[in-house]
Protein backbone atom coordinates (compact mmCIF):
# COMPACT_ATOMS: atom_id res chain seq x y z
CA UNK A 1 0.00 0.00 0.00
CA UNK A 2 2.87 2.35 0.75
CA UNK A 3 3.99 2.08 -2.90
CA UNK A 4 1.46 4.82 -3.71
CA UNK A 5 3.09 7.19 -1.16
CA UNK A 6 6.51 6.39 -2.58
CA UNK A 7 5.35 6.83 -6.18
CA UNK A 8 3.72 10.16 -5.22
CA UNK A 9 7.00 11.41 -3.75
CA UNK A 10 8.88 10.18 -6.83
CA UNK A 11 6.50 11.90 -9.27
CA UNK A 12 6.51 15.16 -7.30
CA UNK A 13 10.32 15.14 -7.15
CA UNK A 14 10.52 14.63 -10.93
CA UNK A 15 7.90 17.29 -11.74
CA UNK A 16 9.73 19.77 -9.49
CA UNK A 17 13.03 18.98 -11.15
CA UNK A 18 11.57 19.29 -14.63
CA UNK A 19 10.05 22.70 -13.86
CA UNK A 20 13.43 24.01 -12.67
CA UNK A 21 15.42 22.73 -15.66
CA UNK A 22 14.85 24.72 -18.83
CA UNK A 23 16.96 22.36 -20.90
CA UNK A 24 14.46 19.54 -20.51
CA UNK A 25 11.62 19.32 -22.98
CA UNK A 26 10.37 15.97 -21.80
CA UNK A 27 11.37 13.16 -19.44
CA UNK A 28 11.29 9.87 -21.35
CA UNK A 29 12.60 7.34 -18.86
CA UNK A 30 13.15 7.30 -15.12
CA UNK A 31 15.73 4.85 -13.76
CA UNK A 32 15.26 3.93 -10.14
CA UNK A 33 17.32 1.63 -7.92
CA UNK A 34 15.53 -0.39 -5.30
CA UNK A 35 17.33 -2.55 -2.77
CA UNK A 36 16.01 -6.03 -2.25
CA UNK A 37 15.62 -5.44 1.47
CA UNK A 38 13.00 -2.77 0.86
CA UNK A 39 9.48 -4.04 1.27
CA UNK A 40 8.45 -2.55 -2.04
CA UNK A 41 6.42 -4.30 -4.67
CA UNK A 42 7.83 -3.15 -7.98
CA UNK A 43 4.66 -4.06 -9.81
CA UNK A 44 2.57 -1.90 -7.47
CA UNK A 45 5.08 0.91 -7.69
CA UNK A 46 4.97 0.85 -11.50
CA UNK A 47 1.17 0.72 -11.47
CA UNK A 48 0.98 3.68 -9.06
CA UNK A 49 3.50 5.60 -11.16
CA UNK A 50 1.45 5.15 -14.33
CA UNK A 51 -1.70 6.30 -12.56
CA UNK A 52 -0.02 9.36 -11.11
CA UNK A 53 1.74 10.62 -14.24
CA UNK A 54 -1.49 10.61 -16.19
CA UNK A 55 -2.32 14.18 -17.17
CA UNK A 56 1.05 15.57 -16.01
CA UNK A 57 4.19 16.51 -17.94
CA UNK A 58 5.46 13.03 -17.14
CA UNK A 59 2.65 11.28 -18.99
CA UNK A 60 4.02 8.54 -21.21
CA UNK A 61 7.35 8.35 -19.37
CA UNK A 62 8.65 4.92 -18.50
CA UNK A 63 9.76 3.74 -15.07
CA UNK A 64 12.77 1.42 -15.23
CA UNK A 65 13.59 -0.40 -12.00
CA UNK A 66 16.94 -1.95 -11.14
CA UNK A 67 16.93 -4.23 -8.12
CA UNK A 68 20.04 -4.06 -5.94
CA UNK A 69 20.99 -7.12 -3.90
CA UNK A 70 22.16 -6.83 -0.31
CA UNK A 71 25.53 -8.29 0.63
CA UNK A 72 26.12 -10.30 3.75
CA UNK A 73 29.41 -11.00 5.45
CA UNK A 74 30.28 -12.78 8.63
CA UNK A 75 32.53 -10.86 11.07
CA UNK A 76 33.70 -14.17 12.57
CA UNK A 77 34.32 -16.67 9.75
CA UNK A 78 34.42 -14.22 6.81
CA UNK A 79 31.62 -15.99 4.96
CA UNK A 80 30.25 -13.62 2.34
CA UNK A 81 27.54 -13.80 -0.25
CA UNK A 82 24.63 -11.94 -1.75
CA UNK A 83 21.67 -11.82 0.59
CA UNK A 84 19.60 -13.63 -1.97
CA UNK A 85 16.72 -15.59 -0.72
CA UNK A 86 15.89 -19.06 -1.85
CA UNK A 87 13.74 -18.82 -4.95
CA UNK A 88 14.75 -15.17 -4.99
CA UNK A 89 11.31 -13.98 -4.05
CA UNK A 90 10.26 -12.45 -0.78
CA UNK A 91 6.96 -14.21 -1.09
CA UNK A 92 8.43 -17.70 -0.89
CA UNK A 93 11.53 -17.41 1.21
CA UNK A 94 12.61 -16.39 4.66
CA UNK A 95 15.70 -14.23 4.94
CA UNK A 96 18.16 -14.96 7.70
CA UNK A 97 20.92 -12.91 9.31
CA UNK A 98 22.36 -16.00 10.96
CA UNK A 99 25.63 -17.13 9.33
CA UNK A 100 25.05 -20.46 7.52
CA UNK A 101 28.54 -21.60 8.60
CA UNK A 102 28.91 -20.46 12.18
CA UNK A 103 25.53 -18.89 13.13
CA UNK A 104 27.08 -15.52 14.00
CA UNK A 105 25.00 -12.41 13.29
CA UNK A 106 25.89 -11.37 9.74
CA UNK A 107 26.69 -7.83 8.71
CA UNK A 108 24.45 -6.45 6.00
CA UNK A 109 25.59 -4.02 3.34
CA UNK A 110 23.33 -2.31 0.87
CA UNK A 111 19.97 -3.59 -0.23
CA UNK A 112 18.17 -0.59 1.22
CA UNK A 113 18.56 1.68 -1.80
CA UNK A 114 15.58 3.68 -2.97
CA UNK A 115 17.01 6.15 -5.43
CA UNK A 116 16.38 7.89 -8.70
CA UNK A 117 19.60 6.95 -10.49
CA UNK A 118 19.12 8.94 -13.68
CA UNK A 119 16.55 10.25 -16.09
CA UNK A 120 16.59 10.08 -19.87
CA UNK A 121 15.29 13.29 -21.35
CA UNK A 122 14.61 15.08 -24.59
CA UNK A 123 16.55 18.33 -24.52
CA UNK A 124 15.32 21.79 -25.29
CA UNK A 125 17.56 24.44 -26.85
CA UNK A 126 15.45 27.19 -25.31
Amino acid at each position, binding site marked *: *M*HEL*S*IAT*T*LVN*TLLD*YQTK*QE*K*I*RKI*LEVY*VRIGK*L*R*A*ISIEQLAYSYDLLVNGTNLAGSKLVVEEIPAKINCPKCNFSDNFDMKGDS*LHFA*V*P*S*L*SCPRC*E*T*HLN*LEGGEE*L*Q*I*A*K*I*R*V*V*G*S*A*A
Partner: protein
Amino acid sequence: MVRNPEIIVPTEGEVFDIELETDILKANGELALENHRILTEHGITAIDVMGSVGSGKTSLVKSMISTLKKHYRIAVIEGDVTTTIDADLIASENVPTVQVNTGKECHLDANLIKKALAKLELNTLDLIFIENVGNLICPAEFPLGSDKRLVVISVTEGPYMVVKHPMMFIEANTVAINKIDLSAAMNVDPSKLRNDILNINPRANVIPISCKNSVGIVETGKSLGLN
Protein backbone atom coordinates in the same frame (compact mmCIF):
# COMPACT_ATOMS: atom_id res chain seq x y z
CA MET B 1 42.04 36.05 -15.03
CA VAL B 2 38.45 36.01 -16.06
CA ARG B 3 37.33 32.83 -17.65
CA ASN B 4 34.23 32.51 -19.63
CA PRO B 5 32.96 29.07 -18.86
CA GLU B 6 31.64 27.32 -21.87
CA ILE B 7 28.01 26.53 -21.28
CA ILE B 8 26.96 23.37 -23.01
CA VAL B 9 23.36 23.40 -24.04
CA PRO B 10 21.49 20.57 -25.64
CA THR B 11 20.35 20.85 -29.20
CA GLU B 12 16.64 20.79 -29.70
CA GLY B 13 15.27 17.27 -29.52
CA GLU B 14 18.55 15.68 -28.39
CA VAL B 15 18.05 12.69 -26.08
CA PHE B 16 20.46 12.50 -23.16
CA ASP B 17 20.73 11.19 -19.61
CA ILE B 18 20.98 13.20 -16.41
CA GLU B 19 22.47 11.43 -13.39
CA LEU B 20 20.45 12.34 -10.32
CA GLU B 21 21.43 9.87 -7.57
CA THR B 22 18.65 11.23 -5.37
CA ASP B 23 17.02 9.30 -2.56
CA ILE B 24 13.31 9.10 -3.24
CA LEU B 25 12.42 9.25 0.44
CA LYS B 26 15.17 11.81 1.15
CA ALA B 27 12.72 14.25 2.72
CA ASN B 28 11.47 11.59 5.16
CA GLY B 29 15.02 10.50 5.96
CA GLU B 30 16.12 14.06 6.67
CA LEU B 31 13.10 14.74 8.86
CA ALA B 32 13.76 11.49 10.75
CA LEU B 33 17.34 12.64 11.45
CA GLU B 34 16.00 16.02 12.55
CA ASN B 35 13.49 14.33 14.90
CA HIS B 36 16.30 12.20 16.29
CA ARG B 37 18.44 15.29 16.86
CA ILE B 38 15.62 17.08 18.69
CA LEU B 39 14.96 14.03 20.87
CA THR B 40 18.66 13.58 21.69
CA GLU B 41 19.04 17.26 22.56
CA HIS B 42 16.28 16.87 25.12
CA GLY B 43 17.75 13.64 26.45
CA ILE B 44 14.71 11.68 25.34
CA THR B 45 14.75 8.01 24.33
CA ALA B 46 12.17 7.15 21.69
CA ILE B 47 10.88 3.63 21.14
CA ASP B 48 9.08 2.72 17.95
CA VAL B 49 6.38 0.11 18.58
CA MET B 50 5.20 -1.95 15.63
CA GLY B 51 2.97 -4.94 15.08
CA SER B 52 -0.32 -6.18 13.65
CA VAL B 53 -3.73 -4.87 14.58
CA GLY B 54 -4.71 -6.60 17.83
CA SER B 55 -1.24 -7.94 18.69
CA GLY B 56 -1.26 -5.95 21.92
CA LYS B 57 0.91 -2.91 21.16
CA THR B 58 -1.25 -0.55 23.18
CA SER B 59 -1.70 -3.02 26.05
CA LEU B 60 2.06 -3.54 26.26
CA VAL B 61 2.81 0.19 26.11
CA LYS B 62 0.20 0.80 28.83
CA SER B 63 1.68 -1.97 31.04
CA MET B 64 5.23 -0.71 30.49
CA ILE B 65 4.20 2.83 31.42
CA SER B 66 2.75 1.63 34.69
CA THR B 67 6.02 -0.16 35.61
CA LEU B 68 8.33 2.58 34.28
CA LYS B 69 6.62 5.82 35.23
CA LYS B 70 8.31 5.91 38.66
CA HIS B 71 11.64 6.36 36.90
CA TYR B 72 10.79 8.08 33.63
CA ARG B 73 8.68 11.00 32.51
CA ILE B 74 6.83 9.36 29.65
CA ALA B 75 4.69 10.45 26.70
CA VAL B 76 3.04 8.44 23.95
CA ILE B 77 2.43 9.20 20.29
CA GLU B 78 -0.38 6.99 19.01
CA GLY B 79 -0.68 6.35 15.30
CA ASP B 80 -3.90 4.99 13.87
CA VAL B 81 -5.82 5.27 10.66
CA THR B 82 -8.73 6.71 12.61
CA THR B 83 -10.26 6.92 16.15
CA THR B 84 -8.71 7.98 19.47
CA ILE B 85 -9.38 4.62 21.19
CA ASP B 86 -5.68 3.90 21.84
CA ALA B 87 -4.84 7.40 23.01
CA ASP B 88 -7.84 7.29 25.38
CA LEU B 89 -6.63 3.96 26.81
CA ILE B 90 -3.13 5.31 27.39
CA ALA B 91 -4.46 8.57 28.86
CA SER B 92 -5.74 6.55 31.83
CA GLU B 93 -2.07 6.19 32.85
CA ASN B 94 -1.95 9.99 33.22
CA VAL B 95 0.81 10.56 30.71
CA PRO B 96 0.68 13.05 27.84
CA THR B 97 -0.57 11.42 24.63
CA VAL B 98 -0.80 12.70 21.10
CA GLN B 99 -3.07 10.88 18.68
CA VAL B 100 -1.94 10.98 15.07
CA ASN B 101 -4.58 9.87 12.60
CA THR B 102 -3.09 9.03 9.25
CA GLY B 103 -6.43 9.04 7.41
CA LYS B 104 -5.82 6.70 4.52
CA GLU B 105 -2.13 6.06 4.99
CA CYS B 106 -0.95 2.72 6.33
CA HIS B 107 2.05 4.07 8.26
CA LEU B 108 3.39 6.98 10.26
CA ASP B 109 6.07 9.13 8.67
CA ALA B 110 8.73 11.46 10.02
CA ASN B 111 6.72 14.57 9.22
CA LEU B 112 3.73 13.38 11.29
CA ILE B 113 6.12 12.65 14.16
CA LYS B 114 7.68 16.09 13.85
CA LYS B 115 4.22 17.63 14.21
CA ALA B 116 3.41 15.35 17.14
CA LEU B 117 6.69 16.27 18.90
CA ALA B 118 5.74 19.94 18.57
CA LYS B 119 2.65 19.23 20.69
CA LEU B 120 4.66 17.76 23.57
CA GLU B 121 6.57 19.60 26.30
CA LEU B 122 9.89 17.98 25.45
CA ASN B 123 11.70 19.58 28.39
CA THR B 124 9.55 17.58 30.77
CA LEU B 125 10.10 14.15 29.17
CA ASP B 126 12.64 11.28 29.24
CA LEU B 127 10.89 8.62 27.20
CA ILE B 128 8.47 8.55 24.28
CA PHE B 129 6.70 5.51 22.90
CA ILE B 130 5.68 5.90 19.27
CA GLU B 131 2.99 3.36 18.46
CA ASN B 132 2.79 2.84 14.73
CA VAL B 133 -0.28 1.92 12.70
CA GLY B 134 -1.10 -1.80 13.00
CA ASN B 135 0.64 -3.09 9.88
CA LEU B 136 3.65 -5.33 9.41
CA ILE B 137 4.97 -4.10 6.09
CA CYS B 138 4.62 -0.40 5.40
CA PRO B 139 5.93 1.13 8.67
CA ALA B 140 9.32 -0.53 8.10
CA GLU B 141 9.91 1.73 5.09
CA PHE B 142 9.54 5.04 6.92
CA PRO B 143 12.06 5.77 9.67
CA LEU B 144 10.71 8.20 12.26
CA GLY B 145 13.81 9.17 14.23
CA SER B 146 13.40 6.78 17.15
CA ASP B 147 16.25 4.98 18.95
CA LYS B 148 14.93 1.45 19.20
CA ARG B 149 12.31 -0.75 17.64
CA LEU B 150 9.96 -2.96 19.59
CA VAL B 151 7.87 -5.40 17.54
CA VAL B 152 4.84 -6.95 19.21
CA ILE B 153 3.40 -10.18 17.89
CA SER B 154 0.97 -12.61 19.49
CA VAL B 155 0.31 -16.35 19.43
CA THR B 156 -3.19 -15.64 18.13
CA GLU B 157 -1.63 -14.58 14.83
CA GLY B 158 -0.83 -18.23 14.18
CA PRO B 159 2.32 -20.37 13.93
CA TYR B 160 3.66 -18.89 10.67
CA MET B 161 3.33 -15.24 11.53
CA VAL B 162 7.08 -14.55 11.75
CA VAL B 163 8.17 -16.36 8.59
CA LYS B 164 5.36 -14.69 6.67
CA HIS B 165 6.51 -11.18 7.63
CA PRO B 166 10.29 -11.48 7.98
CA MET B 167 11.27 -7.94 7.02
CA MET B 168 9.72 -6.39 10.13
CA PHE B 169 12.08 -8.40 12.35
CA ILE B 170 15.38 -7.62 10.64
CA GLU B 171 15.84 -4.30 12.44
CA ALA B 172 13.95 -5.11 15.63
CA ASN B 173 15.80 -4.67 18.94
CA THR B 174 13.15 -6.49 20.91
CA VAL B 175 10.30 -8.75 19.84
CA ALA B 176 7.59 -9.41 22.42
CA ILE B 177 5.50 -12.55 21.86
CA ASN B 178 2.20 -11.65 23.50
CA LYS B 179 -0.77 -13.69 24.73
CA ILE B 180 1.35 -16.69 25.77
CA ASP B 181 -1.50 -17.53 28.16
CA LEU B 182 -3.41 -18.55 25.01
CA SER B 183 -0.68 -20.65 23.35
CA ALA B 184 -2.20 -24.01 24.32
CA ALA B 185 -5.67 -23.00 23.13
CA MET B 186 -4.16 -21.68 19.89
CA ASN B 187 -1.87 -24.70 19.50
CA VAL B 188 1.00 -22.29 18.79
CA ASP B 189 4.40 -22.92 20.36
CA PRO B 190 6.02 -19.62 21.41
CA SER B 191 9.48 -21.24 21.35
CA LYS B 192 8.99 -22.03 17.66
CA LEU B 193 8.14 -18.35 17.01
CA ARG B 194 11.23 -17.43 19.01
CA ASN B 195 13.44 -19.65 16.83
CA ASP B 196 11.92 -18.16 13.69
CA ILE B 197 12.72 -14.66 14.94
CA LEU B 198 16.30 -15.56 15.95
CA ASN B 199 16.89 -17.21 12.60
CA ILE B 200 16.01 -13.95 10.86
CA ASN B 201 17.73 -11.71 13.39
CA PRO B 202 20.07 -13.45 15.88
CA ARG B 203 20.55 -10.17 17.79
CA ALA B 204 16.91 -9.61 18.65
CA ASN B 205 15.81 -9.89 22.26
CA VAL B 206 12.79 -12.18 22.24
CA ILE B 207 10.51 -11.94 25.27
CA PRO B 208 7.40 -14.10 25.79
CA ILE B 209 4.78 -11.93 27.49
CA SER B 210 1.19 -11.85 28.61
CA CYS B 211 -0.17 -8.35 29.03
CA LYS B 212 -3.31 -9.85 30.57
CA ASN B 213 -1.35 -11.59 33.35
CA SER B 214 1.44 -8.98 33.59
CA VAL B 215 4.10 -11.49 32.52
CA GLY B 216 7.30 -10.30 30.84
CA ILE B 217 6.53 -6.58 31.01
CA VAL B 218 9.56 -5.62 33.13
CA GLU B 219 11.82 -7.88 31.02
CA THR B 220 10.63 -6.18 27.83
CA GLY B 221 11.56 -2.79 29.32
CA LYS B 222 14.97 -4.08 30.44
CA SER B 223 15.73 -5.49 26.99
CA LEU B 224 15.25 -1.97 25.63
CA GLY B 225 17.57 -0.53 28.26
CA LEU B 226 14.69 0.75 30.41
CA ASN B 227 14.80 -0.10 34.10
